[in-house]
C-alpha cells in the first residue's frame, strides 16, 4: 500500500493511507455491527424457540389471532424496499444521484407503509386485549399461558419495528446528504452501510414472518 500524498480527497480521514482502506474498514465495521444486531435479536429468537417447544399447541392456537394477509403484505412491502435500496446503491455507483434520491424516497415510503400496517395490527391487538403478560385479557385462545405468545410477538416485532424506524431516520438523512451532493461513485460509504443495515432488518423479518404468522 503506497502512501498516496497527492490529492487527498477531503473525505479521507488522516489515519487511513488510502480511500480503499477507509472504505474496507467501514464495511468490516458494519459487518461486525450487524453481528451484534443478529445476536441482539438472537436472544429473542432463543426465547421464542424455548417457549414454543414448551407450549407447541398454545403457540399454534395463538398464532391464529394474527392476520396472515397483513403479515404477507408487510413481507412484500419490506422485500420491495430491500430491492429499492439496493437499486439506490447501484445508482450512486453509476453516479446517478437523482435516481438514488428517488430510490431512497421509495424505500422510505415503503418503510412507512410497513409501519402503518404494523400500527393497525398493534391497535387491533391492543383493542382485543391480546397483550403480553399481565395485560392479557382475551379469552378466545385455548392452551396454557397464551400471553407468552404475545410477549414474544410484541417484543420481537417491536424491536424490529424500532429498527425500521431507525432505518427510516437514516434514509431521510441520506436523502438530504445526497441532495447536498455529498455522495458520488467515489464515495458512498454511508449509503452502502445503511443499505446493509436495511437488508438485515429485512432479513430478520423474513424469519419473523413464518415464525409468527404461519405456524402450521
Amino acid at each position: 500500500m503506497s502512501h498516496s500524498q497527492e490529492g487527498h480527497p477531503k473525505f479521507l480521514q488522516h489515519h487511513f493511507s488510502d480511500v480503499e482502506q477507509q472504505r474496507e474498514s467501514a464495511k468490516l465495521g458494519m459487518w461486525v455491527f450487524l453481528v451484534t444486531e443478529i445476536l441482539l435479536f438472537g436472544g429473542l429468537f432463543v426465547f421464542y424457540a424455548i417457549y414454543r417447544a414448551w407450549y407447541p399447541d398454545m403457540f399454534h392456537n395463538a398464532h391464529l389471532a394474527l392476520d396472515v394477509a397483513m403479515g404477507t403484505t408487510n413481507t412484500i412491502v419490506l422485500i420491495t424496499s430491500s430491492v429499492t435500496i439496493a437499486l439506490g446503491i447501484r445508482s450512486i455507483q453509476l453516479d446517478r444521484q437523482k435516481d438514488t434520491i428517488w430510490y431512497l424516497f421509495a424505500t422510505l415510503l415503503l418503510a412507512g407503509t410497513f409501519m402503518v400496517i404494523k400500527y393497525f395490527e398493534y391497535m387491533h391487538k391492543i383493542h382485543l386485549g391480546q397483550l403480553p403478560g399481565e395485560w392479557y385479557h382475551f379469552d378466545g385462545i385455548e392452551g396454557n399461558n397464551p400471553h407468552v405468545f404475545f410477549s414474544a410477538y410484541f417484543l420481537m416485532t417491536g424491536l424490529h419495528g424500532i429498527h425500521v424506524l431507525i432505518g427510516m431516520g437514516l434514509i431521510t438523512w441520506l436523502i438530504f446528504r445526497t441532495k447536498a451532493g455529498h455522495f458520488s461513485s467515489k464515495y458512498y460509504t454511508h449509503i452502502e452501510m445503511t443499505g446493509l443495515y436495511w437488508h438485515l432488518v429485512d432479513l430478520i423479518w423474513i424469519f419473523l414472518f413464518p415464525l409468527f404468522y404461519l405456524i402450521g
Partner: protein
Amino acid sequence: MNKIPETHYLNAKKGIWSWLTTVDHKRIGILYLFSVMFFFFVGGMFALMLRLELLTPTEMYIDSDTYNQMFTLHGAIMIFLFIIPAIPAILGNFVLPIMIGAKDVAFPRLNLLSWYIYIVGALFAVFSLVSGGADTGWTFYTPYSTTTSTAVISIVLGAFILGFSSIFTGLNFIVTVHKLRSPGMTWFKMPLFVWGMYATALIQVLATPVLGITLVLLIIERLIGIGIFDPAMGGDPVLFQHFFWFYSHPAVYIMILPGMAIISELITAHSHKKIFGYKAVAYSSLGIAFASFIVWGHHMFTSGQSELAAMIFSFLTFFVAIPSGVKVFNWVATLYKSSISFSTPMLYTLSFLFLFSIGGLTGIFLGALPVDIHLHDTYFIVAHFHYVMVGGTVIAFLGGLHHWWPKMWGRMYNETLGKISCLLIFVGFNMTFFTQFIMGSQGMPRRYHLYVDAYRPFHAFSTYGSWVMAAGFFLMAYYLIHSLFKGKPAGNNPWGALTHEWSITSPPPEHNFEEIPITEHGPYDYDKIVAKSTLVEN
C-alpha cells in the same frame, strides 16, 4: 540524561475542551484511565467497608439491607465499570494502535463516543447508588430482581448502556487489527497483546448484545410484568440465568484475556527472551474465546437445570483449562534461562503466574459437577473468582500500567516504592482470599451478613489482609501521582523492549508516527536484536 520531547500528545492541544472532544486514541485512553480508576476506588471502598463489617459475626456498623446493597454495588461497579473496560479501554486504546503501527484506531469518533457512553452508564449506576442501591447481587437473578423494591432498574439500565461502550471498543479493535496494520505487520508478527485484545474484542461483540437483550427483558418484566421469567405466569426464572450467563461467562474472559495479553508482553520484555511458543499463545487466546461460549451452564449446577445439561456443561468446562494451561506453560518456559530483571512489572507478572494458577485450578474443582454441588455459593467461589479477577486481571493490569506508564507520561515512577507496593498487594491479597478458600470449603456461604462464631478467625484474618492490600494500593496511588510531576524522564525505551511503541518518543507524538513504520522483525526477537534500555539508574 533523558529529556521529555517538546511537543507530544499531552500538550499538542490545550484546554479541557480539547480533551473532551479529542479523537486521539491515546487521550481517550487517558480519559478512560481517570474515570475507570475513580470507579476502582469507589468499588474498593465498598470492599473495605464490607470486609470491616465482616470482622465480627454480628452486626457491627451497617445493617443487613445496607450490607446487601453494598455487595451488589461492589460487584456491579467492579465488574461493569472497572474490570471490563480497564485493560481494553485504557491500555488497549493507548498502545494497540501504536503496536501495529497505526496512527489511530479505525473509528476514532466511535472511540470517543464509547467513552461518553461509559460516562452515561456510570451515571445511571451512581444514580442507583444514591437512590437507595440495588440488593440483588451483580447477577440480577430473577425472580428476586423483579420483585425487590430497591433501585434495580437504574443499575440494570446502567449495565445495559455500558454494554454499548464495550461493544464499540471491541468493534473498533477488530477493524483496527484487520485493516490498519502497518506494512510488514503480518498476523504472526503482531505482539501477543494485540492477539489477546483481538480475542477479547470477538467476545465483546458476540456476547454483549445478548446481555443487552437480557437486561431489556428484565427491565420490561419489572416495569410492565410480561411474566416471561415469572413461574406464576408460565415463565421460567432459570431462563434468565441462561441468558445472563451466555453473556456473563464469556464476559469473564473479556476480563481475563486482556490480562493474559499483558502478561505475554511483560514476560518477554522483562526477561529479554523470545516468547516460547508464539503461535500456541496466539491461538490459545482464540481457543479461550471460543470455549467461553459453550460452558456458561456451570454457573447453574444447582439452579434446577436438567441433569443432562449440567453434565454437558461440566464436561465442556474442562476444555477451558487446555488453552489456559498452554499459556501458563509457555510463559513459564519463556522464563527458563532468560535474563530476568526484577522490575515492578516483572514482579506483577510473577504474582500473576502464581495467583492465576491458583485461581484457574480451583476453577477446575468448581467445574466438576459433584464438587460444585458442595462448594456452590460458598466463600470458595468468592475466593476463586477473586483469585482470577484480582489475582489475574487486576494484577496484570497493574503490571501493564507500570510497564506503559513511562510511555504514557514520559516519566518513571519510583521503582523501590513500586516493588514495596507490589509486595504489599500480593501479601495482602493472599491473606484476604486464601483464607476464604478454607472458610468456603468448611461451608461459609457467600453474601451473608451475619455468620456463626466458628468462622470468626478466618473472617478477621481476611479483613486484616484487606487492610494490607489497601495500604499497597494507596502507596501506589501516591507514587504514581508523584511521578507525573517529579518522575525522572524515562527515555524512549526504558525496558529495552522491541515492540513499536518503544521506538517512538515518550510521551508519543500526536499522530504516533511521522511515517508509517515498516515492521522488519518479530515483536520478541530478543535473540537477534538487543535494544538498549534508556533507563537511568537511580
